[in-house]
């Protein structure tokens, strides 16, 4: 139970601002996420939480350091291999949902499966139906995302992150665009997924209330992880 599924070693991420100045967003982060964990990343706005999540979620490459999955530094993989890993290893939930408005709810949830290279041990459509049913959006399966509520959109996004049955779910302020009540429901959903299905979840939040509900708190300050 205590094996780490992803490990960050001495991660730096910086951008050039203009021609001269370099902005360093992550300053030597070391972090290990263990199988089955439910962790919250907290920290003030601009401290580097999203940047860290993107590195963990293989959505962006760090400037230096190592990202180790299954004893392999995945930064040495080429783009196709990284894409495959992104498809199978991780599911990402964004604050802005990031659904495609021209696809229906069901098509959005199934989108990751259209790019899958692996053979499925299950029927993707059945799993999509199961997830929609479980999240209470089955009646909206043929609707378009811009025609449903924010809470429903985030449920679609969570279903999409789960469709490939990944080993890790990352959520960057998933309740940030929702009202408190809806936000609480979404948080309950994550808790449930972690408890009943032992899904590893890392989520970013700056609400201490939510952070308390998680089992582990990772505090980020000025590009560095202070407490884990």
């Amino acid at each position, binding site marked *: 139970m205590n094996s780490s599924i992803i490990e960050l070693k001495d991660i730096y991420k910086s951008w050039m601002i203009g021609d001269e100045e370099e902005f360093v967003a992550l300053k030597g982060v070391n972090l290990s996420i263990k199988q089955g964990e439910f962790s919250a990343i907290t920290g003030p706005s601009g401290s580097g939480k999203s940047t860290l999540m993107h590195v963990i979620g293989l*959505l962006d490459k760090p400037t230096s350091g190592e990202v180790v999955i299954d004893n392999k530094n995945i930064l040495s993989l080429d783009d196709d291999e990284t*894409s495959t890993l*992104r498809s199978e290893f991780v599911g990402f939930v964004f604050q802005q949902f990031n659904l495609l408005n021209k696809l229906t709810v069901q098509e959005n949830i199934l*989108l*990751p499966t259209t790019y899958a290279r692996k053979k499925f041990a299950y029927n993707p459509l059945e799993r999509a139906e199961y997830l929609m049913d479980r999240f209470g959006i089955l009646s909206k399966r043929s609707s378009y995302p811009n025609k449903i509520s924010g809470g429903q959109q985030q449920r679609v996004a969570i279903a999409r992150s789960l469709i490939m049955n990944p080993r890790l779910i990352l959520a960057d302020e998933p309740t940030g665009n929702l009202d408190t009540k809806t936000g609480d429901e979404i948080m309950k959903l994550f808790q449930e997924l972690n408890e009943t299905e032992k899904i590893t979840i890392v989520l970013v939040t700056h609400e201490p209330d939510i952070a308390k509900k998680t089992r582990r708190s990772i505090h980020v300050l000025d590009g560095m992880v202070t407490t884990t």
Partner: protein
Amino acid sequence: MLNKLSPLLKSALADFRRDKVRTALTSLGIMIGVMSVVMLIALGLGLKNYISGQFENLGANLVMILPGSGFTGEGGGSFGGQGLVGGAEFDEKDIRDLRKVEGLEYVVPLVFKSGLIQGEKDEKVASIMGVNEDYFELMNSKILSGVIFDKTDVSNNAKVAVLGYSLAEEIFEKANEAVGKSVRTQGIRLKVIGVIEKTGDREQDSAVIMPYSTTFGSINPQKTFWSIYLGVPSEEEVESVSSEAEKVLLKRYEEDDFAITEQAEILTTVNQIFGMINLVLVAIGSISLLVGGVGIMNIMYATVTERTKEIGIRRAVGARRSDILTQFLTESLVLSLFGGLAGLLLSAALVALIRIWFPVAMNLTAVIVAFGVSSAIGIFFGVFPAKKAAALSPIEAIRYE
């Protein structure tokens, strides 16, 4: 390949269904690009066909001797007398002199006038022509019914006439029933002995043609000729015969009193004009292609932010760069083919319609170039931004502004 392509096609078609405005605008751009080029070239070809139809009946081995300095540019028709000014008045002596020129096949005097011609059914103002028997050979006239007049008719001032098809059709019940009946013009009565086939030359087709000697009464009391046509066996001899004929005429006339024009020379000039018209058409076509292209480009670029974000989302859920490129290539291809085909079909329909009045024609090269260039622009501006977006990290693409 096919089972990999069909979901792509399906997803591209689904995209179009949900993105109607962009789809319509893009294919419209390509459609207009294809259509304007194909139509412009078709119209240009029509113009060319029309004008060359007017010239076709005159053989390339024809030398025309005209009084004055020849064509002045006005008038324009092959017999349009308005274009001529002053100069020599040719007569039978000139014909006799010219017959002595070595290497000449035909010498045809031409009397030309316009006047009222009465037939059995109707009357009409048309061309009255007096020529000799060689005229028909020289002009490649084909007889539709009856016969043409011969040497004897010419020397006997026979009151006979050969009618052009359109004239015969208008002043008699039926064109081929005119033979044996008579026509009246300028106070004389002529027996119709033949009708010649339609040539496409308006003046030829609506002329009444008689022996030139027959005109020497009321029609042409001065017994002069409007023009003299010379027939040369082959194109190579045109040059030498022309200069021989010139020498003969210079014995009697001043240099400025007549002009010798070779048909081949006119054809060359006409062909040069066509070359120029074609060049202008190609230029106009290229401009409309460019305008169409810029339109396509604008539509593609107007949606680039939205599409880059879409690419970021697709990449975030596992799409490889090649998946994105295949998707956008399929999409652009389908759009271009759709727009291009629509443009072609519309052009074909328009061309078929206009052909009723004007001999327009589709040109394969224009079709291929128009289709090819429009599609290439559509595909390039569909795929190029996608390629750029796919090169970004997924998060950069999602956050693209």
